[in-house]
C-alpha cells in the first residue's frame, strides 16, 4: 500500500505511489496547458470591450424584450403546427427507414457480415454525426426552402440515432425464444415476427418517443436556415430586431419543449 513518512516519523496512507503521483501530475499539467492554449486562442479573437459591455447590452435587450408582444401569438398557430408535424412525421419516416437498417446492422440478424453490416454501420455513423441543421441547410439548397426540407432533414438525422439504439436492442434479445420459434418450423419471417419483434417492441416504442422528444427541440430551430416551422418566425423577428416578438416565440418554444418532454416521460413510464 502506498504510504509516506511524515515529519514525526509516522506512516501516512496515500492514494498513489510516487510514480503514479508523478504521472497523475503530468497528465493534469498537460491538460492544463492544452486548456490554456485553447483559451488564449479564443481570447485573441474576442473583442473584450463587448464582453465588458455585456451586462448593459443584456439588460438593454431584456428591457426591450419584456413584456412579450402577446397579440403576436395569433400568427404562431400555423408555424407551431408545422413544427409539430416536422417532428412527428420526421420521426415516423426515420423509424420506417431505421428498422431494416437496424436488422442489417445487428450481428445476430444481419444477412451478411461482409457487406450488409458495414454498409448499415456506415449509414448509422454518417447520419448521426451530422447535425440536423446541417442536413436542413443541405436540403434547403436541394429541394428549396419550406417544411418539406425540414421534414427530410429531421428524418435523415434520426435514422442513425434510432437504428443504433434499435440494433443494440436486437443484439441483446434472448436467443432461446428465437430458437423455440425456429424449432416449431417457423419460416424466416415467422421467426422475425414471433421471436424477435415482440422482444424489441418495448425498446422500439421507447426509442420512438425519446427521439420524438428530441426532434421537437430540433425542429424549433430548423427555420433559422429556411426549413419551415416556428424558427422562420424567430429568424424574421430577429432580423428586424423585434425583441418583444422574439421573447414570445422563445416562450412558445419553451412550452412546446416542456410539453414534449412531459408526454415522452409519461409514455416511456407506461411502457417500461
Amino acid at each position: 500500500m502506498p504510504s509516506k513518512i511524515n515529519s514525526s516519523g509516522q506512516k501516512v496512507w496515500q492514494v498513489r505511489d510516487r510514480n503514479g503521483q508523478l504521472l497523475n501530475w503530468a497528465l493534469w499539467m498537460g491538460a492544463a496547458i492544452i486548456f490554456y492554449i485553447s483559451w488564449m486562442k479564443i481570447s485573441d479573437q474576442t473583442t473584450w470591450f463587448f464582453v465588458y459591455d455585456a451586462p448593459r447590452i443584456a439588460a438593454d435587450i431584456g428591457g426591450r424584450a419584456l413584456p412579450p408582444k402577446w397579440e403576436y401569438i395569433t400568427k404562431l398557430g400555423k408555424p407551431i403546427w408545422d413544427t409539430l408535424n416536422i417532428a412527428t412525421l420526421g420521426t415516423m419516416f426515420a423509424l420506417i427507414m431505421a428498422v431494416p437498417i437496424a436488422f442489417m446492422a445487428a450481428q445476430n440478424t444481419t444477412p451478411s457480415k461482409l457487406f450488409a453490416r458495414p454498409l448499415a454501420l456506415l449509414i448509422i455513423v454518417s447520419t448521426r454525426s451530422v447535425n440536423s441543421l446541417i442536413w436542413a441547410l443541405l436540403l434547403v439548397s436541394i429541394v428549396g426552402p419550406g417544411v418539406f426540407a425540414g421534414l427530410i432533414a429531421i428524418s435523415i438525422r434520426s435514422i442513425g440515432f434510432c437504428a443504433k439504439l434499435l440494433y443494440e436492442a436486437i443484439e441483446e434479445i434472448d436467443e432461446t425464444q428465437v430458437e423455440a420459434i425456429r424449432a416449431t418450423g417457423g419460416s424466416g419471417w415467422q421467426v422475425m415476427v414471433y421471436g424477435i419483434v415482440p422482444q424489441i417492441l418495448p425498446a422500439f416504442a421507447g426509442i420512438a418517443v425519446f427521439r420524438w422528444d428530441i426532434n421537437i427541440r430540433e425542429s424549433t430551430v430548423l427555420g433559422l436556415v429556411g426549413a419551415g416551422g416556428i424558427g422562420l418566425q424567430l429568424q424574421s423577428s430577429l432580423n428586424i430586431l423585434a425583441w418583444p416578438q422574439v421573447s414570445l416565440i422563445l416562450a412558445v418554444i419553451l412550452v412546446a419543449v416542456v410539453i414534449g418532454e412531459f408526454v415522452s416521460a409519461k409514455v416511456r413510464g407506461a411502457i417500461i
Partner: protein
Amino acid sequence: MSGSVDIGVKLSSRLGKPWRKPPFINSAPLRWTLLIGTVVYLILAFSSFEVNWSRVYAGLERGWRFIVAFSQPDFTSRSSDIIEGMTESVIMTVTSTVVGIAISIPIALGAASNIAPMPIYLACRFIISISRALNEIIVAILFVAIFGFGPLAGFLTLSFATIGFLAKLLAEDIEDMNKVQAEAVKSTGASWLQWVNFGVQPQIMPRLIGLSIYRLDINFRESAVLGLVGAGGIGATLNTAFDRYEFGTVAAILIIIIVVVMALEYLSGIIRARVK
C-alpha cells in the same frame, strides 16, 4: 383456488380456437382511440403540407451533384478556411467541455437529493432544467447578441449546454450510489470535503469519465453548427460553401466532421472499457 377455476373456464371457452397474438396495448378502448387519433392526425398533417414538387424536381439535379461531390471532395481550394474553422471548433469543444464539467460537478452534488439540503437541491435542479430546455442554437443567438460574434459566444453556449446534460446524469448517478461506502468514510471523522473526495467521488468516477467523453463528442458536433448563427467554428465556412453551391468543399467538411466524430466514438469506447 378460485384462480385455477378461472383458468379452467377460460381454457374451456377457448378450446378449439386458434391462438392469436396478444395485442401490444391491452385495453381495447385505449388501443382504438390511439389508432383513430393517429389516422386523423396523419390526414390533418399531410393535408397541411405544401410541397412544391416542381422545385423539388429542379433541385434533384443539384442533389445529384452533391452526391457526386462526395466521391471527389475538394479539400484543397478552401483549405485555409477549413483549417481555421476546424481549429476553432476543436478549441471551442475542448475549453467548453472542461469548463462545463468543472461547473457541473458542484451543481450535480447540489442536485442529488441524498446529499443536498432542499433549497440547494431546488436551485440546482432549476439551473439544470433551464439549461436543458433551451436549444443550443437559441442560446447561441442570445449570446452572440450579447457578447458579439466569435468563438467566445460558442464557448459560453456549449459550456452552458454541458451543465444541463452532465449535472443531470451525474446527479442521478450520485443518487444511486452505495451509501455504505460513504458512511464508512464519514465514520472515520472525515470532513465534508474529504467525505465527497473519498466516499462519493470514487463511486461516480467511471460514469463521470464516460459522460465527459460522450459530451466532448456532442460538443464537437454542436460546435459545427454554431457558426451558422455567428458563434464561431466550422459552421460559418460550411454555410458559405453551401451559399456558393461549392459542394466539393461541403463534402470535404462533412467528411472531416464524420471522421472526427468516429474517432472520438472509437476513443470513448476504449476509454470507457478501461475505466470499467
